Structures are given as structure tokens and as C-alpha cells.
């Protein structure tokens, strides 16, 4: 049983998601019944599609499980345990970037982002870390702010 849920985790997620979206749609989106351009039409349709397909997938899987016709699980490429923590830290760095950029400015935030990720990637050489962080931030600044004239947030101080 646990196996079943694990194999179909994606399907269950989508099933729940489609139900959720359906509810939000009914609640949030107003609809005038005499309006031909019904705004809820396609969202409902898609919720239905997703729900139907994920349910179907789950049922097919149950059927196969019953008949013991399951295909062998494809082996996961050898990833170290808890490697997903790196992803979380990387995501946190990106959040840091767009949260602090209006205060610390483009160059500092980008340098921190690059520096942090290069460490996550396994770089342990301090000089190399600093070099790539600063170089990348400066080059990006040159390309975006100077060459392409995009407005980049500047440091507040």
C-alpha cells in the first residue's frame, strides 16, 4: 500500500491540486451566466482533465498491482542522501538576492549569490570563490547596466 502511494505520489498531488483549484475557481472567479465568454470554462475543464487523468493513472496502477504486473522500478542515479539540502540553500540564496537587492544593490547581492552557489557546488578554494563571485558580479553589471542600459537596483547607502 505504501508502495502504491509512493509510486503514484505525483498523481495524488495533482488530484488534490485539481480539487483545490476547482474550489478556488468557484469561489474567486465571478461569472455572469449570460456571458458567452465564460471565464470559468477552461479552468474547470482543465481541473477536470487533470483530475481524470491522475485518477486514471492511479487506477491503472492499482490494477497492475493487483495483477502483479508491475514494471521494475528504474534505479535512481546514485545521489547522496540529504543532497536536497543543497537545493534548499540554493533557493534560499536566490530569495536572499531578490529580497535584499534593493538595499544592498546589484553587485553585492549577485556576488553573494554566486559565491554561495560556488561553495555549494563544492568549491573550497577561498581565492577561487572570491574571484568568481566578484568577477561574475562585475561582468554582469557591465553587460546589463552599461551595455544594455537596464536599470539595476543600486545600493542604498
Amino acid at each position: 500500500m505504501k508502495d502504491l502511494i509512493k509510486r503514484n505520489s505525483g498523481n495524488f498531488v495533482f488530484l488534490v491540486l485539481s480539487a483545490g483549484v476547482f474550489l478556488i475557481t468557484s469561489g474567486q472567479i465571478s461569472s455572469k451566466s449570460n456571458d458567452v465568454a465564460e471565464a470559468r470554462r477552461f479552468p474547470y475543464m482543465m481541473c477536470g482533465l487533470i483530475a481524470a487523468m491522475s485518477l486514471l493513472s492511479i487506477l491503472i496502477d492499482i490494477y497492475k498491482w493487483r495483477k502483479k504486473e508491475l514494471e521494475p522500478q528504474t534505479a535512481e542515479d546514485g545521489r547522496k542522501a540529504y543532497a536536497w539540502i543543497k537545493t534548499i540553500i540554493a533557493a534560499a540564496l536566490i530569495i536572499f538576492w531578490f529580497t535584499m537587492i534593493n538595499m544592498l544593490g546589484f553587485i553585492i547581492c549577485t556576488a553573494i549569490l554566486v559565491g554561495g552557489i560556488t561553495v555549494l557546488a563544492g568549491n573550497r578554494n577561498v581565492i577561487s570563490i572570491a574571484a568568481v563571485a566578484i568577477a561574475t558580479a562585475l561582468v554582469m553589471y557591465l553587460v546589463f547596466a552599461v551595455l544594455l542600459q537596464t536599470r539595476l537596483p543600486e545600493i542604498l547607502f
Partner: protein
Amino acid sequence: MDIIVSVLQNLFSLQALLVLVLGSAVGMVVGTIPGLSASMGVALMLPFTFGMEASYGVLLLVSVYCSSIYSGSISAILINTPGTSASAASMMDGFSLTKQGKARQALDISLNASIFGGIFSGVLLLLLAPQIAKAALTFGPPEYFALGVLGLSIIAGVSDEGLLKGLILGGFGFLISTIGIDPVSGIYRYTFGNSNLTAGIDSVSAMIGLFAISEMFNQLEIGAKRMVQAVKVDNEGIGMRKMKPYVPTMLKSSVIGSIIGAIPGTGSAIAAFMAYRQAKASSKHPEEYGKGSLEALSAAESAKNAVTGSAMIPMMTLGIPGDAVTAIMLGGFTIQGLAPGPQLFEKSPILVYTIMIGFLLANIVMMLEARVAIKAFSKISNISNHYMIPIVMACCVVGAFAINNNLFAVKIALIFGVMGYILPKLGFKNLVPILIALILGPIVEQNFSRSLVLSDGGFGIFFTRPLSLIILLIAAGSILLGLRKKK
């Protein structure tokens, strides 16, 4: 005769050459960096054109356009991130080829096919512009709807891990595309009071997140030394002569691309996917598609660049932009005092022909520049992950910001990045259906609504109009064929 002489004089001047070389270089840089789209590149060049003579100004924009559409594939192939959404279809095969050590070949095919498509549409532009434009006008809301459905049917051909999963992701992508203000009814959907969401989810940010940022997350997790495991790198190039076996594919794809480009409101991404689909259906080796098929790559690439020339057709003959980039070019024309449209051909034939032939030249210049650059580019996959991952991540983040100068796009990219990272773990490995549905959703839905407005709610309108009926039948046929082949 003197028209031809003047045109040639215009084109073979130092200024023209400088403009073409510069434009191609800028376009190539802008196109490769994920987050900087072709329209951004053209918009950024717009102020520079004010001080120039009209034809040179337009040529500058044209060369930026062509090369940025082409170069999006460079990053698609090398680091699994399309630089522009047009290259999304090249990503699957392109990156697989890189993983097999054949990056150089992939890049060569990409360039050659792009040039093929570009010149094909350029010739069409030169010879048949007015006629094609007239034909394109016959597409009304029902036809656009049918075209969108045809585009969506690609999902059936792309999801090789099961139609059901493809449909789920497609439905999901479609749902996401409904976020924002529905243009036809004016109703706010899923905006939760956030003004940034009123515009909907930009497909470029979504793409950056879904395919690039998630790939970087994956790389971090795997913790390898290089992005692409050191395989024996095959640096043998593919010159023009070796392209012979791909010519039929490229021809068909260029036709598809040219048709899509000439129809206002569609874009390169859709053309590339359609050509991909068509090529797969008629290929002798369909099982290779998605795993590193050079043929697939040639199809997608020639289609996407075939859009560039034909998108200029409605722009120049009717004054109607064929896609977002030509919309900006249109503005460039107007500010110069030129008015694209029926009168332009009569009043300024020299200008018109300069632009059209200049377009062909731009493609050639681009090819020369790219050939030089490719040798360098293919070595990129050798760079250590210590540098690649952070730099690419930074490009994605800054690029997402640069789309609209809006930090919100970065948040969207991050969310999609996390999504793209988690979904494979939930069993959904091929995420392309999300992108396809995200791009095509609005076209399908809005034109469906408009058609119903025109027909007062009658569904018959899609079947009584011959053109939309034909397209819908093609779509149905292609889905059925796809299902059959699965058995």
C-alpha cells in the same frame, strides 16, 4: 534596374556592413543569455536607430532579431536552458547530444539549419510577401483556435512516458496560463490581489525556472565535477555538405515555420514544436527523437528561424506585426517616419528591397560570425561545475529580472525552478508539455471565446468554416496517428 543598383549600393557600403556585423554580434549575445529575449534585444537597440538612416536602422534591428532567435539554441544545447523560448524545442535533443559528447555537431546543425530556415523565409519575403500576407489575413478566431489545438496536440507526440502524464502536465500548464486578467471577459483570475499576477505568468520566466534553474538544482544535488560527464568528445564538425540528408526535413520544417510566422500573433516557439512533431511523425527513426536526434534538431531549428523572415511579411506589407519582436520593429519604422503597409512598397521601393535583401545578408553575416564563435562555445561543457553552476544560476536570476525590470519575475522563475526540481521526483520527468500549454493556452482559450462571441454561442462555427475544419482534422489525425504508433 536602377532600383537594384541603389539597393546594392546601399547594402555594400561600410555602414551597412558595420550595422549587420554589430547587430548580429549583439543579437547573438542577447539570445544566448537565458532571460534576455529577442524582443528585449531589439527594444534595447531601438534608441540607437534614431540617429541612423532609416534603412540602416531597420537592418540593425533585423540582424539583432535573426541572430538572437538563432543563438537561443546555443545555451539550449550546451546547458539545457533555452536562451529564448524559440529554442525550447531544441533543448531535448540538443542537450542529449551534448551529454553524448556531440555538442559540436549539435551546434553545427543548429547553425546550418537556422540559416537554412532564415534564408528560406527571406526568399519568401522577397518574392511573395503581398500574396502571403493576404492569405494570412484569412485566419480569424476559429482558425486561430484550431491552430492552437493543433499546437496542443503536439503534447501527444512529446510525452514519451505516457499520454496520461503528458495530459496532466498539459492541463497544469494550461491552468497556469489562465492566471491573470482574461482579456476577452476582463475577469481577474487567480490574482489574489497581487497586481503582478494580473499580467499572468510570463512564459520566459517559467521556462527559465522550469528548465534552467531546476537543472542547476539537479546538478548541485548530483555533485559532479562537470555538467556533462566526460564522454569522449567528438569534435568533428558538420559542414554544409554533410547537411544533405537533412534537407528534406529542413524544407518541410521551413515551410511550417514560414506559415506560422506569416500568421500574425503566433511565434517561433510554436513553429519549432510543430515542425518537431511533424518531423517525428514522418521520420524513419522516430525513437531517436528526444534522445539526441540530429534530424529532430534540424527540424526545430530551421522552423524557428524560418519565422523571422515570414514574420516580417505582415509587418511590411500590412503594418501588422507577426510576433512580439516585429511589433517593436514596427515602432522603429514609424518613429523614422516610415509607415509600413500597402503604401510603403509603392512609395519607397528602394528601402523595401534594401531591407529584404539585407535580411538575407544578415543571415549570412550571422553564419560567419557564429562559425567562429561555435568553436569556442562547444568547449564550454568542459568548464568545471564550480564555475558553471553559479554563473548560469546568476544569469538566470538576472535574466529573469531583466525581462520586465521586475523582481517578481525572479520569484516566478524560482517557483518554477522548484517545481521543475520536484516534479521528476514525483514521477514526471518530461516537463515540456507544461511549456507548450503555457504558451498555447491563451491562444486556444481567447480565440475560443471570441469565436463564440461571433457565433452567438454556437459551436458550429469551428466546423462550418473550411479552414478551421481542415486544421482541426489535421490535429485530430495527428493525435490518432500518435496513439496508434504507441501500440
